């Protein structure tokens, strides 16, 4: 009898707990990697008399899908986390309202990929390759510098990439190769990938799997080169135990014209319950105080040109001079075909 009473008590407590909320709540739907310093957010809450409620929707693609499916009765007021590979889809689905925030003035024009201002750029990062310094030093190998280098015999069985069908970095890298090689002439992206296959490239389904299980620097894997984020080395240095080494254990390979720039956007959902607060929050996200918090929280670059970028980034998370350039509309239109062709070449 006492056991059942305890069970009942737990269940009632469950129902009762979610009863507490401030008078005004702003709901933000983000992907699971969203992070910010509490005091920075608290400042916004205090200034506007609002409680921020964040919901994680999974990765970028999942979050967007949920936002699209809940059209008409949106899950939140603000949507953050759509990147430029999904931008076309977000705009086509018509779930956002335009907002030309005054903060856009501080944001470089080439980041503002949506002329209708329905999706505003918050941050950007680069997908390139990381390499294991120790491995190359021990083996006395020269670190590859271009995409073509990766297909050289000396680099056989050293590369691990992610499946573009299931992973955003994987897709980003594929797009970068397409942008770099094109599909005309002698050296097409298709022939490049064929040569990578001959060079025993390892394909896995997700970035975590590639990085933590197959990348040699993490201790288990045998592959010293992995498709990853340009800020990963900086992160590794920051996360290292004291005393910290002078340089990170990993380095970046930033092939010319073949680094994919991933931009992340924020937008106000149609049917938001608190449109004014939503606009204020978007302004806030583009403001210097929030933007300066971004690098050490999410390990990407702030879009606001005026925001301070930490020393660590400047030293170990370089910005490529010429990133790969692809039109978001083209991505949306060709993604399926590209992935299919790629699978045919690399997996089958």
């Amino acid at each position, binding site marked *: 009898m006492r056991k059942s009473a305890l069970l009942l008590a737990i269940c009632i407590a469950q129902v009762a707990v*979610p009863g507490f909320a401030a008078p005004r709540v702003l709901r933000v739907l983000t992907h699971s990697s*969203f992070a910010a310093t509490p005091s920075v957010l608290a400042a916004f809450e205090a200034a506007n008399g609002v409680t921020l409620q964040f919901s994680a929707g999974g990765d970028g693609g999942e979050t967007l899908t949920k936002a699209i499916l809940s059209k008409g009765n949106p899950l939140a007021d603000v949507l953050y986390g759509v990147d430029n590979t999904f931008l076309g889809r977000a705009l086509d689905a018509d779930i956002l309202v335009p907002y030309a925030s005054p903060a856009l003035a501080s944001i470089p024009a080439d980041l503002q990929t949506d002329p209708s201002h329905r999706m505003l750029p918050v941050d950007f990062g680069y997908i390139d390759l990381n390499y294991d310094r120790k491995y190359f030093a021990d083996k006395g190998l020269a670190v590859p510098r271009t995409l073509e280098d990766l297909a050289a015999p000396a680099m056989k069985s050293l590369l691990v990439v992610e499946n573009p069908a299931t992973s955003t970095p994987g897709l980003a890298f594929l797009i970068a190769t397409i942008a770099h090689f094109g599909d005309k002439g002698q050296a097409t992206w298709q022939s490049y990938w064929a040569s990578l296959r001959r060079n025993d490239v390892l394909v896995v389904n997700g970035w975590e799997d590639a990085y933590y299980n197959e990348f040699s620097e993490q201790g288990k894997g045998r592959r010293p080169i992995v498709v990853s984020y340009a800020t990963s080395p900086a992160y590794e240095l920051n996360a290292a135990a004291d005393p910290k080494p002078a340089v990170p254990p990993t380095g970046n390979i930033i092939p010319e014209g073949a680094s994919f720039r991933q931009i992340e956007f924020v937008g106000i959902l149609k049917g938001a319950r608190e449109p004014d607060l939503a606009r204020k929050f978007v302004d806030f996200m583009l403001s210097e105080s929030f933007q300066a918090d971004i690098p050490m929280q999410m390990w990407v670059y702030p879009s606001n040109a005026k925001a301070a970028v930490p020393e660590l980034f400047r030293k170990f998370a370089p910005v490529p001079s010429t990133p790969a350039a692809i039109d978001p509309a083209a991505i949306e239109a060709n993604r399926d075909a590209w992935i299919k062709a790629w699978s045919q070449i690399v997996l089958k």
Partner: protein
Amino acid sequence: MVADRAQVRAGIGTAAGARAAFAAVPVLFLVIFLIYPLVRILALGFGPIAQTGLGAIRQAAVDTDLGRLLLSSAGQALLSTILTLAAGLPVAWIFATYRFPGKELLRALLMIPFVLPTVVVGSGFASLLGSGGLLEKLAGLLTGSAGIHLSIMRTLPAVLLAHVFYNVSIVVRIVGGAWSAIDPRLGEAARVLGAGRRASFFRVTLRLLLPSLAASAMLVFAFCFSSFGVILILGGPRISTLETEIYRQAVYMFNLPAAALLSVVQLLVTAAVMFGYSRFQARSSTIQNLKPQRVTTHAPRKAAEWLLVALCGLIPTIGLLVPMGSLILGSFGYWKNLFATTGHSLFWISPGLAAINSLAFATEAALLSLALGVPAAYLLAHRPSRHGGAAGAALSTLDVLFLLPLGTSAVSLGFGFIVGFNSPPLNFRGAWFLIPVAHALVALPLVIRSLLPSLRALNPRLRDAASVLGASPGRVRREIDFPILRRAFVSAAAFAFTVSLGEFGATAILTRPELVTLPVLIYTALGRPGASNQGQALALSTMLTLACAAGLLAIERFRAPGPEAF
């Protein structure tokens, strides 16, 4: 005797109306929380196709390479089922025949995999089977060469191993439970009549075990058929199934029509398998005089028996502990970080609170699935077994309906929840109860399937005897059914509890910040970069394991009145 069989069949006909009314509740539950969201999301997908007609469907089938997906899904599911049965039967046998120290612990241990998120298991298996893993080290030791590289990650064997790891408990619980209630004198009678050991086993024991074997085989098949995380991580890019493709199409491609088509195919295939199983099940059930464990089990007497028990018990124990052990080992050093709050503000609640949420939801889900599953099981158990005609077909359809959550793509269902419960009058998308509801939905087929074989085997005359002695129908249930079928009820509750604890998909979709559960927290930790976060994810997984074990042991303690342990 003819009259005898007929009596038994038609016997409790007077209460049929009441039973049907009771069973209407789970049916209603399924219609609202399964059928309706599914229909909504599929309609969304099929809408565009409907306009362009069948040609578009055929095109979508070609585009997604439907035939190959079907083959691969069914193939790996079938292989997994066979292997799981092979792995589970010896363990079921020792559970059914012997009493030995550590039996309860092993029983609980077997169920832990259910609760572990597939991503965590994936990394556990990776550290064993992948590069730099245990397998590689062993191979190096055996062959004497240090630089050997052996990895079976991203291959079919890895997938099959993981499936066996996850599902062996189903076979052990359901088959082992039924086996431990078989009257040992039946086998002895067969042997006296001239059947050798083997013949006696095949003709008597196996025949009586057919319903539970079929039930566990069907459950394992359904789980493996719609397996997601394991395929993605351990199968790698070269292995894809209907479920992974549904996810890809829905989320990555946002090609809802293709996702809808694949969902329907998946549903139809599973429904067909379930329907076939259901017909077989009805015909193969026999009424038995179920015996308690005191009668059917004994401590091993000879050295040979001890050896057998040790083998059959230790092998799965090792098979389970090694992956789990690697998880626990990987978490060392990160426990402190778990409870520090620096940097973890968003999506991060205290692990203690997440644990409480998980346990609370699991309890609610278990109670809900029992409340729904028991009437449903009773309805399905008393049906006229050799009866053809409309009633028999209707009950088989109901049977399949109750099994349907197993064959439904979790992705489709999750999205169906978002679409379906988006607007009034069913506007409870944000409601907290949707989480235990979603969990109960997934657990319901397991609950019913655990109960059915035993329910059907219970001698109905025992109920008659109790009834005549003055026990009202409810009292009969309490005094007769529950104590004798205790094993099955405990298994059902254990399954429901465990499934709920480990459930991630629906919870992630529906969760509010304060209702975060341990699996959601684990995924959050895994989604962040850094070895520290990975380590914390492992620590959380260990917490989940402990919570699960505690809960399971508590459930085992539920004893019915009476001296006999069934």
